[in-house]
């Protein structure tokens, strides 16, 4: 610390020779002149002295009959005039300073954290639409509106926080972990449960409504299973009125499902020739700089890898470096062998079965066969399944029914 202060104020290394250098030092200390790093070599003394004190040395030197010579100069008071003499250097310094200040009025980086469902691409598109982009002036950025806009656009975002730290816009979001429930509209009228498939009822637990079918009965698609209109009887067993409820029941239906998938004999596959060509590039914001290159191959795809050097990331400078690898390939037509076709088709059927199981469908029996038909492999699966059924269908209000009931 003291060293830095001394450097700022400037100091000298002087050499004292003459009759009595000790007396010179004593006089210096008496006049509060600090001397440091005093060394003696061959009868001469070298020491450091601050620039300000140096101007007080003349009477002391005269009094003691010593001669003082400056060996070296250190510190800013000597460095600055030297630098000021170099005009272009000064101009560059001031320009750099100006640029630095000017560039601090802009947003140079946007950082997004906390996103799981919303991909960065989607968010970038959103920001672009909202007029927020890298290189925009800070004063045009309205953080409050941006936060509101984020919450309005993305329903799953429950909390947002945007803030500017330096030239970096940090956006933090919290997404809702629970799935978004579509609100069930409360309707005044009731609803029936209706069968979606043909089949046989295997079990039935009714929670609400009047069951219209019984276990073991076979139903057709569209048959009302549980009715949502509950009759209220008069004393003479005539219907007085209907109360409408939302029919609710767990009904298992035994029925048959079929699944068919097709696979053409031949397919086109990318076959890489192994020839690749690499191109390096430098990206500033959205502008890419690279060496001009002609079309590398006739047919090719490209793998882009880019990264941002730590240094630029820390300073929020939008500079990326990267490498593009162009890989040549040929479209080759292949024919599936029986084994390949079987495994592919089986995979398809497995995904179908898994999707069924996720819906709560139990498979009792299955019968799968693979055939060829007109240039394609066809897989047909017949499944005996036990499946929960029942879709809600709103009851069309039979107004007159209730009225007539009460009239009687």
């Amino acid at each position: 610390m003291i060293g830095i202060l001394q450097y700022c104020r400037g100091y000298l290394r002087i050499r004292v020779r003459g009759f009595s250098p000790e007396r010179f030092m004593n006089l210096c200390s008496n006049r509060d002149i600090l001397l440091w790093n005093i060394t003696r070599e061959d009868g001469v003394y070298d020491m450091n002295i601050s620039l300000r004190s140096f101007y007080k040395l003349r009477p002391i030197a005269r009094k003691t009959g010593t001669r003082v010579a400056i060996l070296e100069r250190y510190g800013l008071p000597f460095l600055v005039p030297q630098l000021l003499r170099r005009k272009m250097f000064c101009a560059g310094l001031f320009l750099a300073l100006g640029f630095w200040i000017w560039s601090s009025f802009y947003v140079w980086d946007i950082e997004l954290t906390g996103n799981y469902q919303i991909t960065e691409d989607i968010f970038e598109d959103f920001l672009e639409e909202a007029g927020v982009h890298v290189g925009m002036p800070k004063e045009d950025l309205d953080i409050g509106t941006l936060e509101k806009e984020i919450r309005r656009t993305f329903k799953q975002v429950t909390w947002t926080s945007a803030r500017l730290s330096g030239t970096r816009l940090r956006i933090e979001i919290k997404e809702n972990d629970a799935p978004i429930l579509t609100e069930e509209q409360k309707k005044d009228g009731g609803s029936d449960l209706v069968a979606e498939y043909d089949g046989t009822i295997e079990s039935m637990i009714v929670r609400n409504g009047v069951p219209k079918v019984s276990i073991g009965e076979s139903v057709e698609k569209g048959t009302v299973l549980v009715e949502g209109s509950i009759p209220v009887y008069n004393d003479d067993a005539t219907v007085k009125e209907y109360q409408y409820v939302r029919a609710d029941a767990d009904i298992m239906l035994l029925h048959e499902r079929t699944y068919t998938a097709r696979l053409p004999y031949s397919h086109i596959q990318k076959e890489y020739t192994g020839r690749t060509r690499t191109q390096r590039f430098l990206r500033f914001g959205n502008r890419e700089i690279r060496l001009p290159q002609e079309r590398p191959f006739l047919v090719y795809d490209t793998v882009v890898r880019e990264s941002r050097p730590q240094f630029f990331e820390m300073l929020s400078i939008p500079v990326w470096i990267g490498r593009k690898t162009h890989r040549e390939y040929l479209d080759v037509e292949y024919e599936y062998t029986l084994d390949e076709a079987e495994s592919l088709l089986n995979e398809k059927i497995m995904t179908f079965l898994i999707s069924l199981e996720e819906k709560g469908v139990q498979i009792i029996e299955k019968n799968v066969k693979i055939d060829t038909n007109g240039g394609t492999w066809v897989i047909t699966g017949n499944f005996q399944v036990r499946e929960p059924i029942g879709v809600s269908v709103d009851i069309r209000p039979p107004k007159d029914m209730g009225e007539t009931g009460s009239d009687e």
Partner: protein
Amino acid sequence: MKSPRKEAFVDSLQLPKDVCMGALRVTLTGNGEAWIENYKGILEYTGQVILLQGKTCQVCFEGSRLSIDYYTNEDMKISGCIQSVRFL
């Protein structure tokens, strides 16, 4: 030079002697560094000997590669290989 009366007085009041009597104060750290306060001036300074004038006595540091790190009116620091400290 020492007045026995003054010394008795300072002793009885338990005052610090370096302040009241102007006694030299030497602080040694190993044989490499020494801090000295309450001196009047340097009488001799070479790489082997540093002789200092105090108010009541002189002190002589002998050794090799002796140098003065800093020197002010208040205190000074000597570094080097100190072999002996003598009061004359």
